[in-house]
């Protein structure tokens, strides 16, 4: 893990303003999935349109970062930039003015927001916890597969996942 990965958003923004290439890389790494998820899942843009939005949003972040008033509000600012750019893309497809386009997929957008919050909280857990939760919930591995690969008795897997979920819940509660 790079030292940039542990920086808060506000520290990251200060690094970017100081033209620190490592900070820029971390910002893109931290928010690339978020931007793409809003475009692809929240607004259901095609891969090609989502890619265009992605490029455009990060260009705007790069050129307009000085206009961000509160450095700790990086995520809502990126979300706003992305939503606006997505609305433009939808309007262009339908050949109507952008202001006439509504955010139809608002529940999907809140899902994206929630998923990102979970991902952030997950990053605060120990590596063994991150690993076992990823195996069960993301990779859909069975208890037997997890037990075989991690060399843990099969019977303890479910308990261990439950404990890690408890820690994840504590992290989420602390953040909110």
């Amino acid at each position, binding site marked *: 893990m790079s030292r940039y990965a542990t920086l808060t958003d506000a520290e990251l923004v200060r690094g970017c303003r100081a033209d620190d290439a490592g900070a820029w890389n971390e910002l893109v790494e931290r928010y690339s999935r978020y931007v793409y998820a809003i475009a692809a899942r929240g607004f259901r843009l095609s891969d090609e349109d989502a890619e265009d939005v992605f490029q455009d949003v990060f260009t705007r972040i790069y050129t307009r970062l000085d206009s961000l008033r509160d450095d700790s509000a990086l995520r809502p600012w990126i979300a706003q930039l992305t939503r606006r750019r997505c609305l433009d893309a939808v309007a262009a497809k339908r050949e109507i003015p952008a202001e006439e386009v509504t955010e139809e997929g608002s529940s999907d957008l809140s899902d994206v927001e929630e998923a990102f919050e979970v991902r952030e909280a997950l990053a605060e857990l120990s590596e063994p916890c991150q690993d076992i939760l990823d195996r*069960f*919930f993301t990779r*859909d591995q*069975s*208890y*037997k597969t997890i037990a075989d690969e991690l060399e843990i008795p*099969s*019977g303890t*897997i*479910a*308990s261990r*996942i*439950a*404990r*890690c*979920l*408890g820690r994840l*819940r504590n992290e989420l509660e602390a953040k909110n």
Partner: protein
Amino acid sequence: MDGDYLELRLGEFLERLSADGLAPGGGSAAALTVAFSARLVAMVARCSVRWDEAGGVSAQANAIGERAVELSYTDGRVWEDALTALRDAEAGEVEDPKRDFALEQKLEAAAAAPLEIASLGADAAALAALAAEHGDATYRADAAAAAALAAGGASAAAHLVRVNLGVHSADPRLARALASEQAAQDVAARLLDSRR
């Protein structure tokens, strides 16, 4: 059928199950049995307010239930594909390597779905064992019922792997299916026996 079985009312699903079409069949029913088992475990965990790990167990049980429901539809679809391909192959009068390869692929997919259903059955049974041990005693019978359902689903699914024409007796997939079946049955036997 488009969509998945969750879009149907229970009565409609049962009608389709007993209709003379191909899917849904035994694999879909086995998957839904595992889903019932997993959701029952989630209920026991939710009702066990003094159990520290209840929230985590409930989340896992729901995840297993969701996967099982998805598989109930997948199994029906891949089984229908395999059966159609098999009938085409039987009707063909000349050898056709391309057709035979396609059939092999479809049989493989038709074995993969019940193999995963059996594995989910073993996992649901493992959670039922935890719920029976740590959950509220009032719901211990529900945990045992969940284990019995998980074992039934796992056994049915393992049987479907066993009879798949693309699976031979020494096939590792069969060994895995049978191991899942055995694990689920062991839990069910233990929990059902404990109150006799």
